[in-house]
């Protein structure tokens, strides 16, 4: 089957090989190549965003540090948050989604391959615009990734950097929306004959629900961004108080997008974790229907909680209580996921491969993040915790400990499928322990800082917070080492010759029964030599009885 992969270049076959390969990748509409490009893009941006985190933690290593000017600190802070969410987490999940969803449902490609390529390529100008904004006169946007008005209005932040931030997110948003349409149509229309919805692997379900979230939430962000942009450039008054505009309107619109956004980056991660846990515990996923319902419930209730980010803005008591209540409700399906994962590995025969280590680490960290979420959903307590380092600790447990750890699990898990090579298990163990302990340390300490009185988004702090801040910075160093080690391993492995791997290199598919392990590693163009048949993904009743 290997010869399939070596010769998709017929069109340019007379060109010099490197040029032909390059043009092939630049013009490809193959979902696997696009998926890999998304992943490389995300990796590149992770280096940028990670370096920015390093600048933030260096500045905060001691109080009254003069390393970064206050203005520059806020710019770096804003771009770090924006880049990590829009240019690292989302493209990485879109990358795995693009690569895997068609394969997992037995399709040849996404429903709209050219639209798919367009979605990816939109991210290139988008990312460039975001990074270039650092170098314009007046500097980049500096109002945080949430860019609250009036701070982000022309009056208080005249720099074109804010306009570039807006345009950049418009492009990224368009990319996500088109991608979401593609995922929804692909999932609904392109499944192999006979595959029922309730037979789809959980990663496909998770991406499907995520795509619906994107389709509803991102246009709201785009609308709000457009209003901000016209306020800034055309003199409209959506947010201008002196002209009858409302500063809180921005917050409502932003968080109507912003809360579903956090599920956009966690639901596909949930899917990844389910696959990895079942594979290496050598058991079927526990409570598959319950898991699907939980994903859908999180997706739906997720629309009703946005104002939990606004408890201290002066909402009415009734709104406070309702949004607090709905936020607590979210914890229930989230809990169902965790219990079902525990039941999935319960009684299994666990193999501690690197992806499995990350998946187990994900559960450990995600539980901590979710528990923090309940304190925050408790409005009475959130009056004290809001906008402190407690919140920063909470969302890094679910982003770094959740999404990023899941992405690392996915990277180690599907790397052999995508490249025909295994990443090093030995280095992987190091990457895992460094990253896990770094995340555990940094973000736990942040919770304490918040309780003790340190607000977020500050470039300096009172002297009593010094030792804890240094612990956070130490945790950053551990995470940085993990990242560097992973990069080293990826490049080293890609330079090695391809191994001759079987379709199921981990030896898991007898229990997993998903189509990704039923095709060659890497898969041929169009994924399958023959359209997959139900016996390739359906559990036989005999097996169940055993």
């Amino acid at each position, binding site marked *: 089957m290997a010869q399939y992969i070596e010769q998709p270049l017929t069109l340019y076959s007379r060109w010099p090989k490197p040029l032909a390969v390059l043009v092939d990748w630049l013009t490809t509409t193959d979902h696997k190549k696009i998926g890999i490009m998304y992943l490389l893009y995300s990796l590149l941006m992770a280096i940028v965003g990670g370096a920015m985190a390093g600048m933030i933690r260096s500045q905060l290593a001691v109080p009254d540090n003069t390393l970064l000017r206050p203005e520059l600190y806020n710019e770096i802070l804003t771009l770090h948050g924006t880049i990590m969410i829009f240019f690292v987490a989302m493209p990485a999940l879109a990358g795995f989604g693009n690569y895997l969803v068609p394969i997992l449902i037995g399709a040849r490609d996404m429903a709209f391959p050219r639209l798919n390529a367009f979605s990816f390529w939109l991210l290139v100008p988008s990312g460039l615009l975001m990074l270039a904004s650092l170098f314009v006169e007046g500097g980049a946007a500096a109002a945080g990734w949430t860019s609250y008005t009036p701070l982000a209005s022309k009056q208080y932040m005249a720099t074109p950097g804010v306009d570039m931030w807006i345009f950049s997110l418009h492009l990224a948003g368009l990319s996500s929306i088109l991608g979401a349409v593609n995922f929804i149509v692909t999932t609904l229309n392109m499944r192999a004959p006979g595959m029922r919805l309730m037979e789809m692997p959980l990663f496909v379900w998770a991406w499907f629900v995520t795509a619906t979230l994107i389709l509803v939430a991102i246009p709201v962000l785009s609308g709000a961004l457009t209003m901000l942009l016209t306020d800034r450039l055309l003199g409209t008054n959506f947010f201008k108080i002196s002209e009858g505009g409302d500063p809180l309107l921005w917050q409502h619109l932003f968080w109507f997008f912003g809360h579903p956004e956090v599920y956009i980056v966690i639901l596909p991660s949930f899917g990844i974790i389910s696959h990895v846990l079942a594979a290496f515990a050598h058991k079927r996923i526990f409570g598959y229907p319950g898991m699907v319902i939980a994903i859908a419930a999180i997706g739906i209730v997720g629309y009703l909680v946005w104002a939990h980010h606004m408890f201290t803005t002066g909402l009415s*008591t009734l709104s406070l209580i309702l949004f607090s209540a709905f936020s607590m409700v979210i914890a229930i399906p989230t809990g169902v996921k965790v219990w079902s994962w525990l039941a999935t590995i319960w009684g299994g025969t666990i193999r501690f491969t690197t992806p499995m280590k990350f998946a187990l680490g994900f559960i450990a960290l995600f539980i901590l993040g979710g528990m923090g979420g309940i304190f925050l959903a408790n409005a009475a307590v959130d009056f004290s915790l809001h906008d402190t380092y407690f919140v920063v600790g909470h969302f890094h447990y679910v982003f770094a400990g959740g999404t990023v750890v899941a992405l690392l699990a996915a990277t180690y898990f599907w790397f052999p499928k995508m490249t025909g090579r295994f990443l090093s298990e030995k280095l992987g163990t190091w990457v895992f322990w460094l990253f896990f302990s770094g995340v555990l340390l940094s973000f736990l300490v942040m919770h304490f800082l918040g309780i003790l009185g340190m607000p977020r988004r500050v470039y300096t702090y009172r002297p009593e917070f010094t030792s804890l801040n240094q612990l956070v910075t130490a945790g950053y160093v551990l995470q940085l080492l993990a990242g560097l080690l992973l990069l080293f391993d990826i490049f080293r492995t890609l330079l090695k010759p391809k191994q001759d791997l079987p379709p199921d290199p981990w030896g898991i598919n007898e229990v997993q029964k998903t189509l990704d392990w039923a095709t060659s590693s890497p898969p041929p163009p169009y994924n399958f030599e023959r359209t997959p048949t139900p016996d390739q993904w359906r559990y036989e009743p005999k097996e169940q009885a055993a």
Partner: protein
Amino acid sequence: MLRKPAWAAFVIGLLMTSGCRFADPESTTTWLFDPATPIAEEVRQNFWYTASLIAPFLILAEALLLYAIFRFRNRAGRKPAAFHENVKLEVFWTLVPAITLVMIAVPSFRLVHKITHVPADTELEVQVFGHQFFWRYEYPEYGITLSDEPLVLPANKKVALTFSSVDVIHSWWVPAFGFKQDANPGRVATRWVQVKPGYYKGQCAELCGALHGVMWIEVVALPEEAFREWVRARKRGEAPSIEELRAMLSGPQVAKQED
């Protein structure tokens, strides 16, 4: 993953190393360890109450995870179990957290009501205005304005605070008071405090521009006599420094010496 004893030792060690710093009387006082208002006191209780209801789930989940990791290794001769559903169990782990959350919610909502409803018997109103990057306080009853100065409050008296801003959004936060409130331009929000005598630190909690990180807050809550003394001094055009204000904390005799 997490080795339990190491984990516990880590947390305890952390609390101890930070504890010596926070015993310092100049440290920021917090709602959790030194609540200064009735609200902060209740928030503290509600926090520990919430924590006590959540902790069993946290410990159970992490413990099950650890147990599974050690117990269900892939050893020679072990066969994986085949179960993959148990409806009773699933209903159970949906309902028990749901009930727990109701138990968290009910007292929380009562407290929310208490925080947001200003009692009718407040004895003073102070208007708080956010500026880039300092706070201005107006006492309409006395015609006093404090600009970029410590806020002075009568201790143990119910005081209504109204919050607004002249430019961008700020957030007024003194941790020991048990709440923070955004100061929105074009809007007014009202909260209330009843502060124990003392000196309190806080700072702006909503990103408001370059110097947000140093938009400090200081509050001195003076005993009744000292507070009246301060009002008189202020009306005479004097502006006692923070050191003088803190000296007045120890009693009216200190204040009298200053006449």
